């Protein structure tokens, strides 16, 4: 009856030992001190989406120079982030939020999530991206959601690459396109908005109907489309046209290559802008403002491409070589007023679902 007890007892005591030895997260938290000091002005709590990243040394530099301590939390993707901020307006998740994009900015502003703040460091090149006149949100970075093509496929099939949204309706591009669902993926929503901007509130459904008739494939997530269905990346799927980002080709360039195997169709892009804002009811609004100034500093703006794959809003910043070579932004992307998006987003997604999914 006690034959195997030593083995189990050893396992149990090992588990207890490692945790007591400080291997546990709770017992070994380097931030424990700061989380216990909530309410002290020194702490700035930053809420971001789950793609947020900045170089460690920049964060340390900010903390050294300002005497603020930064604490980050990332409760989901862009859409989930906004909805959580709205749900917690009476007791905000932090002092400052980063990562609300233009497809959700209108909703957040309408729900009173942010206190207006205009940073003295706002570069002139950022002004066209402001979400409202009050300055509720500060534009920090931008990027384009565009269709990408597998160049090899078009060479092999002696077929010209499409250039515009209209081109995709041509017979020769039938069964070649894979996009993501606007209800479940943010690039999908951006592309839907691009078509609304292109064909107007009365014409976009007709466009999608024709796309669907031409063999469009819809999947639920970017990773699914890009890594399974797209022929130009690792998945070796059977669709040479995929919905992705203007920057994606830069990631597909091999070490010594001079050409990217994929290319963004710059005539199909929707402009994404990511914002930061001071949360209404923040414990530390001054710290929140200081963090927004920090995001607009030249150092952080220059760090953004490497860390978050977005373009800085400050057009004076030098970009990585691979980006200037392989990932140019569209000259004239489709855009839309955040307030207009907020008025119609759910309705458009619903109509899109009825048209394309049925």
């Amino acid at each position, binding site marked *: 009856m006690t034959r195997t007890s030593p083995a189990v007892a050893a396992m149990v005591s090992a588990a207890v030992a490692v945790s007591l030895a400080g291997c546990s997260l709770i017992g070994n938290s380097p931030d424990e001190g700061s989380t216990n000091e909530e309410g002290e002005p020194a702490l700035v709590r930053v809420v971001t989406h789950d793609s947020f990243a900045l170089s*460690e040394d920049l964060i340390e530099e900010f903390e050294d120079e300002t005497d603020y301590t930064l604490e980050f939390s990332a409760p989901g993707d862009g859409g989930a982030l906004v909805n959580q901020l709205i749900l917690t307006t009476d007791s905000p998740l932090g002092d400052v939020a980063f990562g609300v994009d233009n497809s959700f900015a209108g909703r957040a502003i309408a729900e009173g999530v942010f206190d207006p703040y205009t940073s003295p460091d706002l570069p002139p090149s950022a002004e066209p991206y402001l979400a409202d006149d009050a300055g509720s949100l500060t534009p920090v970075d931008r990027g384009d959601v565009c269709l990408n093509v597998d160049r090899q496929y078009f060479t092999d099939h002696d077929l010209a690459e499409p250039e515009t949204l209209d081109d995709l309706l041509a017979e020769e591009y039938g069964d070649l396109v894979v996009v993501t669902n606007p209800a479940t993926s943010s690039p999908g929503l951006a592309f839907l908005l691009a078509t609304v901007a292109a064909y107007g509130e009365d014409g976009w459904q007709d466009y999608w109907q024709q796309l669907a008739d031409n063999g469009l494939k819809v999947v639920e997530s970017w990773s699914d489309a890009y890594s399974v269905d797209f022929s130009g990346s*690792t998945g070796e799927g059977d669709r040479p046209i995929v919905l992705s980002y203007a920057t994606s080709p830069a990631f597909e360039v091999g070490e010594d290559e001079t050409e990217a195997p994929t290319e963004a169709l710059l005539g199909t892009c929707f402009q994404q802008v990511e914002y930061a804002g001071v949360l209404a009811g923040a414990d530390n609004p001054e710290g929140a403002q200081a963090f927004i100034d920090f995001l607009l500093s030249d150092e952080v703006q220059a760090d953004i491409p490497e860390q978050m794959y977005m373009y800085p809003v400050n057009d004076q910043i030098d970009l990585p070589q691979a980006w200037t070579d392989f990932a140019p932004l569209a000259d004239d992307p489709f855009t839309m007023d955040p307030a207009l998006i907020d008025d119609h987003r759910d309705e458009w997604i619903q109509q899109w679902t009825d048209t394309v999914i049925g």
Partner: protein
Amino acid sequence: MEATVGGRADGRAGGRSSSRAGGRAVGGRGRTAAAVVAAAVPLAFLAIFFGYPVAALVARGFVADGALDLGGVAEVFGAGRTWRIIGLTFAQAILGTLGAVLLGVPGAYVLYCRRFPGRTLVRTLVTVPFVLPTVVVGVAFRSLLATSGPLGFLGLDGTFTAIVLALVFFNYAVVVRTVGGLWERLDPRTAQAARALGASPARAFVTVTLPALGPAIASAASVVFLFCATAFGVVLVLGGLRFGTVETEIWIQTTQFLNLRAASVLSVVQLVVVAGALVAFSRARATRERALALHGNPARSTPLQLTGRGGRPGGDLLPAAVTAVVVGVLLLAPMLTLVLRSLRTPTGWGLDNYWALGSTGGDNALTVTVWQATANSLRIAVDATMIAVLMGVLVALVVSRRPRSTAGRRAIVWLDGAVMLPLGVSAVTVGFGFLIALNHPPLDLRSSPVLIPIAQAIVAMPLVVRTVLPVLRAIDPRQRQVAAVLGATPLRVLLTVDGPYLVRSLGLAIGFAFAVSLGEFGATSFLSRPDRPTLPVVVFRLIGQPGALNQGMALAAAVVLALLTATVMALAERLRGEHAGEI
């Protein structure tokens, strides 16, 4: 996930005889008080970290401007889509459960009643899918089934069948372990007697063995039903909104549309479905406890016989063939796809993606290296396991008692059900609930690192209970009575009678809790901190970034997660295997 099935018929008889035992009045009251205290701790834990947040979120959907607003109910039930989704949820759950049971029963027979080389390895392998990240499984399944994939000719991509297959992939192990654990302990002499009296093997199986297995099958089916009815990630990836379920609809209504009215109504619908499954579950277990007389020791398993006398097909051929196909095609093919794709590099085959796990990914996709994330996952798993095991054992100790009063028995059924509920409630509901319920005094836990282990412990707790409880229930109550009559205090009875059984069942419970914590993504992703992500969180992030290196690293990291899980489960299997005979 009930891996140890040791229920015995003596529970009831013991309960009756205990009421006749003299001199127990004082001890009985003390024991009742102890049970109430022991139940209060996990109940309070569940109430604070599960019930309160979920109720807070659901309540938001039913209150508008301070008044009760039931407009959402009409809105949701008035939409044709809702009924289609409820129908799809049931269809997928029923078919997934049927598939898992029909394929799992032969698997249980082959893997638990027959001996062959590599059996332990296969037993371990079948458990790995249970904790693989769904986003990765989705990519693996679609890589196989997409028109360009090796199984593309089947035309299954984006079909309902693909979803059902994936559900079977995830839940096969539940049936195999639950039914297998019981089957190896069935007294084989009953079936042998039937055979001696002239019954064919098929007839003996249908009339003798199957009815005996019935309760275990019903029990496994209920758990699988619960998992299938609330499956989320894999349904979304494989089926999209075309085959949405109540769970995916809650996710979309909450995270994309912030339509809490609809989400709350749907959450209540889901709770009703889950509660129904739980009732069926508890009925199934009750039946088993009444009806089964088990061998204390597992029947010594005989070697697999593929050929019978004179070279004719042996009795084991059919189950062995079914199991080989299931393990080979359904389980191994997606896992192999993962492994193969993780070994692909832009220049051919190699371990580059694995070497890169020490980096932060192509173009700094991550804030920490994958190994650091693995270390985070392990640390969190230690905490989550401790919480889950502590709470789960307390619950199991209370639920394993058999009070004489009807009220007491009823209370125990409710406690048992309450602990199971977290398995059936959407992670989105819990995650959003945490945010609105635990973010102001007196419980201000915003971004506290303690929330992740707590959330994972809530998910793991039901499995701990299901693992430990059967062992405790199998203890002959007369042992406790004898100890009490001889003057032992209730605490001493607990330590000397229950203690040794408990400690030995803990190995598997720890294994399950650890594995669940390692693989948990839904609730974790809500609470994760960017500077301290877990392994599933970095897998999710990597697979969401373009570039061969990031994609390859995501798959390599998923393989690491699978290997960790396999190791943990193999260890648990070993511990269980050694002492199984003594329960």
